[in-house]
């Protein structure tokens, strides 16, 4: 027996009070994990998770159905956003955790993230010390971190790390500190290595360290991109100005089978979607661009349940009027952990 179809005007979600009863969302199309568009699929969500995705799913009783006109895309994931002012000046602060450092009222600042579709962000300490401590994963607008200790920060950026009073003063100094510190750090630690020169990459390789790690190229990717083939690499959105050289560099990185994960670092969350749009235009591959701000970013953070519409993932969903990479499409509503936390004021008809 079909439940009565509640045709909601202008596709507004129902009230946002949390209720265990399941929801069936029936958008015009959804974005699949591989970034492509798929029409006619529905998403069943229960509490804060996605339960089923598919066509004419059999529904548990009490499911209410929401007809949505627009494209349902997974919420964007910000692969690395730096925590506010510089915390501690010692060369090694490996025990510092951003999970403890985020102030509660900061969550109200997430309005600007929600309004552009960023539903989860990976809060990393600033890479101003050789070992700056642990990052944490947050849902936008939530007061509790989803993952308390996600990645540890390791910085080989000499001009950021250099410190007149305590040293180190250059790359060899930083490498020497790592030589001493790394053996005593538990093997389970997974690092994000912030580098900006080929020499830093070469120096890291000589340490023969067996921790897991991913590289984040803060600058100069054209200088050492060739050595990161077949890897997942983090890129700051600040370097996405689309002059001819950057476009060519991105094409060559893709040809070297490198996967991108965009992070805003200190930039504004707006730049995440713009960077994906430019990547799509440069590489003529919208699916690859979508992944750079959803699945690849989630892989960099090391969490599987975000940035994807798949059973078991967080119900972080964003409703757009068209394909998110189409500049003319408008964000209608944003849902984090099954609750609609942001709704764009309806379009006043011109």
């Amino acid at each position, binding site marked *: 027996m079909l439940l009565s179809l509640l045709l909601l005007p202008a596709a507004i979600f129902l009230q946002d009070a949390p209720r265990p009863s399941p929801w069936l969302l029936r958008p015009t199309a959804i974005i699949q994990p591989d970034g492509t568009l798929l029409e006619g699929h529905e998403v069943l969500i229960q509490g804060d998770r996605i339960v089923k995705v598919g066509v004419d799913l059999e529904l548990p009783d009490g499911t209410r159905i929401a007809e949505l006109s627009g494209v349902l895309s997974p919420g964007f994931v910000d692969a690395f956003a730096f925590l506010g002012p510089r915390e501690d000046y010692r060369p090694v602060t490996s025990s510092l955790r951003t999970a403890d450092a985020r102030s509660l009222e900061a969550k109200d600042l997430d309005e600007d993230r929600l309004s552009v579709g960023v539903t989860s962000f990976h809060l990393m300490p600033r890479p101003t010390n050789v070992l700056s401590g642990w990052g944490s994963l947050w849902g936008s607008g939530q007061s509790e971190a989803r993952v308390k200790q996600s990645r540890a920060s390791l910085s080989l950026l000499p001009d950021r790390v250099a410190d007149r009073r305590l040293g180190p003063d250059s790359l060899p100094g930083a490498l020497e500190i790592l030589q001493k510190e790394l053996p005593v750090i538990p093997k389970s630690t997974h690092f994000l290595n912030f580098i900006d020169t080929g020499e830093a990459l070469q120096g890291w390789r000589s340490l023969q360290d067996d921790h897991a790690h991913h590289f984040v190229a803060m600058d100069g990717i*054209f200088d050492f991109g060739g050595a990161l083939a077949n890897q997942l690499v983090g890129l700051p959105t600040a370097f996405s100005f689309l002059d*001819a*050289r950057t476009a*060519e560099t991105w094409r060559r990185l893709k040809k070297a089978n490198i996967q991108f994960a965009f992070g805003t670092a200190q930039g504004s969350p707006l730049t995440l979607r713009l960077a994906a749009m430019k990547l799509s235009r440069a590489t003529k591959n919208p699916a690859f661009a979508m992944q750079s701000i959803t699945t690849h970013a989630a892989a960099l953070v090391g969490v599987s349940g975000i940035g994807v519409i798949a059973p078991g993932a967080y119900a972080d969903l964003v409703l757009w009027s068209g394909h998110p990479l189409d500049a003319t499409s408008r964000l209608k509503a944003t849902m984090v952990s099954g609750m609609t936390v942001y709704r764009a004021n309806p379009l006043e008809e011109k």
Partner: protein
Amino acid sequence: MSAQHQKMRSSFLLFPVLLLSLTGFSSAQEGSVAFRVGTVITMDGSTHSPGTVVVEQGRITAIGGADLEIPFDVLLKEYPDATLFPGFAETHTSGGLDRANENVPVAPFLDVKDSIDPVSYFFEDELRLGTTALGIIPGANCVIGGRGRVVAPAGMTMEAMTLDDSMGMKIAIGPKSGWSRSAQMAELREAVSKLNRDLRTKAQDILHQGAVKADALKADEAGEDSEEDGDMWDSSGGYVRFGEDFPGKDLLSEEDVDEIQRGLVDILNGDERLWLWCPTATDVFHGKTWAEDLGLLDHIIFVVTASAWKAADLLMESGRPVTLTGSMWHVERDPVTWEEVRTFVPTVFHEAGLAFSLGSEKSRMGPHRLGYQAATCIREGLPRAVALAAVTTNPAAMWGMEDQVGALKVNADGTFVLMDGDPLDIQSKVLQVWIRGSKAYDRNTDERLQRLLKGQSR
């Protein structure tokens, strides 16, 4: 002049001494000498081996083979295995000056003669390398730099060194440091239009005074004949010959124009050779249009760097000579892949049919010396004649001194260099340099070089 040097020079002044007469190079009696050597490269189309050159009263009177008969009163010197060669000519350099530019951008009134330091190491090194003529001119950090002068690198006073004082005026199209080219061109245009305005007002005043004088004369009142501006009567007018006419133009004489602007009037009249500093292709384009607008195209000589090779067709179209200063290679990075693309500019100029000359840049590391640069041209495939001409006859032609320097011709200057091998081989050494019939340099009496080679300390 660095401070120590100043001190040293002043230590001479304690001894009231007549420098010139005792030790000057162009010593009193202009020597007559004849050289019979292994080969004579005349750069005038012929090479004699063995060859003889006869110099009388500082001028070459005869050149020929071994059998050339020598006048009885001329001293003959024999160097069977040496080569005689007109010596290199440095077209355009600001070496030998204490500072290359004043910080006044428009300075047509300046002249290098006030700043050439005859005792500077620069000239000693040029002599040691076999350079016999240099075009010394202000540097490029200016709009109008001032007048240059062609000198020989030997002589105790600037007058003794001078070969020709009308080398020409330095004008920079390439922007002054810290300026954009739009500011540079605006300053140049402003200087010319200000001159035009001042000339017209001055002409009007002269016309008026002339008329007052004429009336007074008609009334044949004695009236003291004030000398200061009797222009109506003196015939020295007609100094301003450029641009369209205006009333009283032909009455303007040199004293009427204030001395700051006289240089600019000479330039616009077309009496000065203009050395147009156009480092890049864009500058060549703007320089050429500026010169064409003022009708000065056939007075300019382009002074370019390697990055102007893209304007080779423009330079060819203008038909004017070009001197290439600094490095001969242009390295351009592809805007996308940053892959270095190197172009050897003399080959581009040669294939475009341009008569170009080379200028060595006073650089620390590279061997930017004329002999070595000419050798590099041969290495990169240019014919030997073109390479040699670029450092001897072409510069002389640019100075308008073809029949005086750059080549050994009858009644040219008795200036030549004796080397122990081919001038373009880096290992051949300069044995002697003769300038206008007198010996300016001899390797055996070069104390500093000998000390260096033997490694003795002082």
